[in-house]
């Protein structure tokens, strides 16, 4: 497709496990083990997974914080897994990140002005006045009062700090922002605020988001396309409606059934359904993973819906 902003092709991130007397590499932790997907311009792409599924590692590899073991990340037609290519394409300006824990991602000894201006100083040559105007503008965008530029991170609440993090990410006019669990440390009403800001910014500046989360409700609200990750691989990829209405992989079914629903009338039915799927998952689990416990390669089952089906099911159907 024409307007894809980034393509991830068979990305792998393996961490070596060293042991023994010589501290040799004896094995690898396959945190990300061959995943492929692509994000279109200006869309929010959801990446869902439980803890340990490799979703944050994927995000880090895309930003370039984590080195990819193999595979390609194609941006503007070039593979940016090499640092030299990243520099040439100004990749680190175009791709920014929002972190989960706003307290540890903001330097406690810097004023907000310096925190937000840091990426600007890296990539642009502005005078002090221009820089200040730009910071003010950014604070305006995320709805923060103008006197906050002289304050320190600890003077703000969690939601405000997360908004500062967003302002910093937006500072360089990025094309893609990787948001790694941006709201999971926030209260419900504050989360609503942050999510709204993210949506507004996206519409205003046509930024694509890779939204990494374990909260399926939030993903449902934010994204149109999503991928579900398990054991370092993707189990199901597709549009929101397809996956929520017609989940095919047993892991997806289990994940969807486990979301608490605000539907008190039918909660017993929902709980029974959840337990039935859980039993099914325990019973048939091995059919859906190969003998090493890896997820099978993705197969297209419908337009814009790919599922990691086991071999027997590919021709025979369910």
């Amino acid at each position, binding site marked *: 497709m024409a307007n894809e902003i980034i393509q991830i092709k068979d990305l792998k991130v393996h961490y070596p496990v060293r042991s023994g007397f010589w501290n040799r590499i004896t094995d690898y932790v396959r945190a990300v083990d061959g995943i492929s997907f692509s994000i279109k311009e200006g869309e929010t792409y959801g990446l869902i997974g439980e803890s340990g599924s490799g979703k944050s590692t994927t995000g880090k590899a895309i930003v370039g914080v984590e080195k990819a073991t193999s595979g390609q990340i194609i941006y503007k037609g070039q593979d940016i897994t090499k640092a030299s290519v990243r520099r040439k394409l100004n990749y680190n300006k175009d791709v920014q990140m929002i972190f989960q824990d706003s307290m540890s991602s903001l330097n406690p000894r810097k004023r907000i002005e310096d925190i937000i201006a840091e990426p600007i100083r890296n990539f642009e040559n502005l005078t002090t006045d221009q820089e200040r105007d730009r910071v003010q503008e950014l604070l305006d965008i995320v709805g923060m009062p103008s006197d906050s530029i002289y304050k320190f991170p600890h003077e703000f609440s969690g939601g405000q700090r997360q908004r500062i993090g967003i302002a910093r990410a937006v500072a360089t006019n990025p094309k893609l922002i990787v948001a790694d669990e941006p709201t999971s440390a926030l209260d419900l009403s504050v989360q609503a605020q942050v999510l709204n800001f993210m949506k507004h910014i996206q519409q205003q500046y046509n930024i694509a988001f890779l939204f990494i989360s374990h909260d399926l409700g939030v993903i449902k609200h934010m994204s149109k396309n999503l991928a579900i990750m398990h054991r370092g691989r993707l189990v199901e990829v597709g549009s929101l409606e397809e996956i929520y209405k017609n989940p095919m992989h047993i892991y997806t079914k289990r994940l969807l059934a486990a979301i608490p629903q605000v539907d008190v009338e039918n909660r017993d039915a929902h*709980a029974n359904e959840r337990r039935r799927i859980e039993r099914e998952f325990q019973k048939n689990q091995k059919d859906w993973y190969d003998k090493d416990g890896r997820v099978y390669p993705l197969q297209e089952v419908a337009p814009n819906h790919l599922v990691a089906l086991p071999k027997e099911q590919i021709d025979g159907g369910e």
Partner: protein
Amino acid sequence: MDNHQDILLDVENLHTGYRLQGKFYDAVDGVDFTLKRNEVLAIVGESGCGKSTIASSIVGLYDRKNTRVTGDIKYKNLNLVSLTDGLFDQIRGNDIGMIFQDPMSSLNPLMKVGDQVAESLLYHTKMNKGQRRARVIELFKEVGMPKPETMYDMYPHELSGGLRQRVVIAMAVACKPEIIIADEPTTALDVTIQAQILDLLKEIQKESESGIILITHDLGVVAETADEVAVMYAGQIVEKADVKTLFSHPLHPYTRSLLNSMPQSDADDEDLHVIQGTVPSLKNMPREGDRFAARIPWIPASEHEKVPVMHEVEPNHFVRCTCWKNFHFQND
């Protein structure tokens, strides 16, 4: 059903204040509720509303010097507010079990998990070492841990988050307490594990006929597990009802706003509802009038009560203040 025998815990006019720069500020400001046998009472609210303070007041886990607790917490014929530390030691773990949010920090990293669970049996029962071990293994089976004999000799870091939380639950229920206080028991866990842990808690409750106080900020968890719900804002309960009523027709503006700000799929492209302003900090909490009034400034002051009290709107449905009667969202 509704006789006095079934009331396990009766909290009346509980005030818990923390000392900040020499002055006491009430984090919990006049809370009343009862916990019945076979009931899951959920206390919901955002961070800073005082829900965890209630838990620590009940089990007496607070700094006696810098905390002031007044009011009544009646358990059997005791008032837990004025209990001495020695007596508390007999009740805590034996009659009241606690489950905390982060299983990693509530377990001792240098001690085998089995021994940690056995510790509470050591304090509260006369079992010998072999009996304790057998009982712990039995408990591990009850909470659904695979290979309980091997698990006994493991250390916390060797277990996954879900298993650790199961150990903590085993610890809490070791002496068959009548009351279990679960403070955000599943917040640190994945959804699939969360579902299992909540199922487990309900099972344990049914078997032991205990009462559970479930403290959480997750409305989904409340809707799935609770029988009764109390919604807290700024140290006070603003609405109290059974789950069905609370979710089908919430009345207090705060409850309604909170439910509205949940990301739900149906309203796809719409903005989520945002509650104006921020939760007041302990020092700046408005002590007079309706505490939620500042967050809904478009509602005229005349709608609020001068001294908001709880009104029983319908049987067993309590709402604080009268402002709900003419409440509407700003853009309606």
